[in-house]
């Protein structure tokens, strides 16, 4: 299980596309160094470098896997050759365990955070995930850079432990940025839970969804969905002119612009107040695929199926 359930195929593709891309350019010099041979190198490296090398090794493995020779036709000699060229995809859990070992030996090092973030993103459940969350809680809860780690926790469906951590940080952190990001992450996590529970109520999906999450997690989701969560006032707290609104949620990478928390909250609030069943649809005026401008209100008098789509 690599990802918790995603409510649509499109979203699943979106998430996997985002998570599969390297977040920094490959460091070719390091790769070359490693390629020179397997002789053990006895030297003390900074923790962050050791961790970065493990992550780079995973990416190299993944790249080799992506570029592996395609299966030859199953005939004659090609059949015998086939077994030699097949390789397995890298298991992120193996790399996560190696990262955890290094982190455990260097507790509290600032360089650990990027690796913790990698683990939370690549293995969003299981023992390594839980250890990473626990390390965050024990060693970084009072730090400011913990804010950078939180957005990955709500890219899929959030784990109960991460929801608790976000709630705690939103209330108690001494840093405005951490409180701002934690508040937004907690809101997004809550919305993801609500979407998930809607799917659980659809018998067609229930069995499939259940296989993704443990029973205790399911109970947590059901409980969160029924609790009184005042989304509107929580979003209002994050408005652009508040002390929270100026910060970014996530960082700019993978072609994905960082999102300003104030703007994000404004959009979510707008959706909550206007993009609901029974409300007038806001007009859209923009160019079509040929560059000609048209507007949604031209369709008044017809039933309109407004379809947000993409060919990916």
């Amino acid at each position, binding site marked *: 299980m690599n990802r918790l359930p995603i409510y649509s195929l499109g979203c699943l593709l979106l998430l996997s596309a985002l998570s599969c891309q390297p977040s920094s350019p490959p460091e070719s010099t390091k790769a070359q160094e490693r390629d020179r041979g397997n002789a053990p190198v006895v030297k003390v490296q900074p923790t962050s470098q050791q961790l970065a090398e493990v992550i780079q090794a995973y990416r190299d493995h993944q790249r080799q896997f992506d570029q592996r020779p395609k299966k030859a036709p199953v005939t004659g000699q090609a059949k015998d050759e086939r077994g030699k060229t097949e390789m397995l995809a890298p298991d992120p859990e193996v790399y996560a365990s190696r990262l955890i070992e290094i982190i455990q030996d260097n507790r509290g090092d600032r360089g650990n955070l990027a690796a913790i973030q990698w683990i939370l993103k690549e293995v969003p459940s299981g023992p390594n995930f839980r250890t990473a969350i626990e390390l965050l809680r024990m060693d970084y809860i009072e730090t400011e850079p913990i804010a950078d780690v939180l957005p990955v926790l709500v890219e899929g469906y959030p784990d109960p432990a991460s929801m608790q951590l976000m709630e705690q940080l939103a209330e108690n952190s001494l840093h405005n940025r951490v409180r701002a990001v934690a508040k937004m992450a907690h809101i997004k996590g809550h919305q993801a839970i609500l979407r998930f529970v809607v799917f659980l109520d659809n018998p067609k999906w229930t069995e499939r969804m259940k296989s993704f999450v443990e029973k205790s997690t399911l109970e947590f989701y059901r409980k969160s969905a029924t609790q009184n969560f005042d989304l509107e006032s929580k979003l209002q707290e994050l408005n652009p002119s508040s002390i929270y609104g100026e910060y970014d949620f996530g960082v700019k990478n993978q072609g994905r612009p960082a999102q300003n928390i104030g703007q994000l909250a404004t959009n979510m609030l707008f959706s909550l107040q206007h993009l609901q069943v029974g409300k007038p649809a806001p007009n859209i005026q923009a160019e079509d695929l040929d560059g000609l401008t048209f507007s949604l209100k031209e369709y008044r008098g017809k039933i309109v199926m407004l379809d*947000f789509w993409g060919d990916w």
Partner: protein
Amino acid sequence: MYPHEQLLVEKLSGKPFAIVGVNSDSDREAIRQIAKQKNLTWRSFWNGPDGKFGPISRRWNIEGWPTIFLIDAEGIIRYKQMGPDTEPLDREITRLMEEMGHTVDLSSDPSQDPTHDSGQ
């Protein structure tokens, strides 16, 4: 989704119904060619070079694709759906068309299986 959308266009032709897309591909020229090749006849707004993070999907707070809204003849949002499940969508379209005095039959179609999804 494409086969289902094409089916709706076909079955509801001549009726007061329209599909309006908001396309979230960042390369407009590429998607224009694809739309031509795959015979996607409905008109689409283009969400701009930021693709999924463009201004229209941000304004509409879209968090998953596809997301579909049904808007009635008075411009009121009547239904909202995330994901490619065509069954509830067809049911709502049928209901809204009936409200306008048009009986339509969108049932018993093989493309109702969401795993049948080809394009998205």
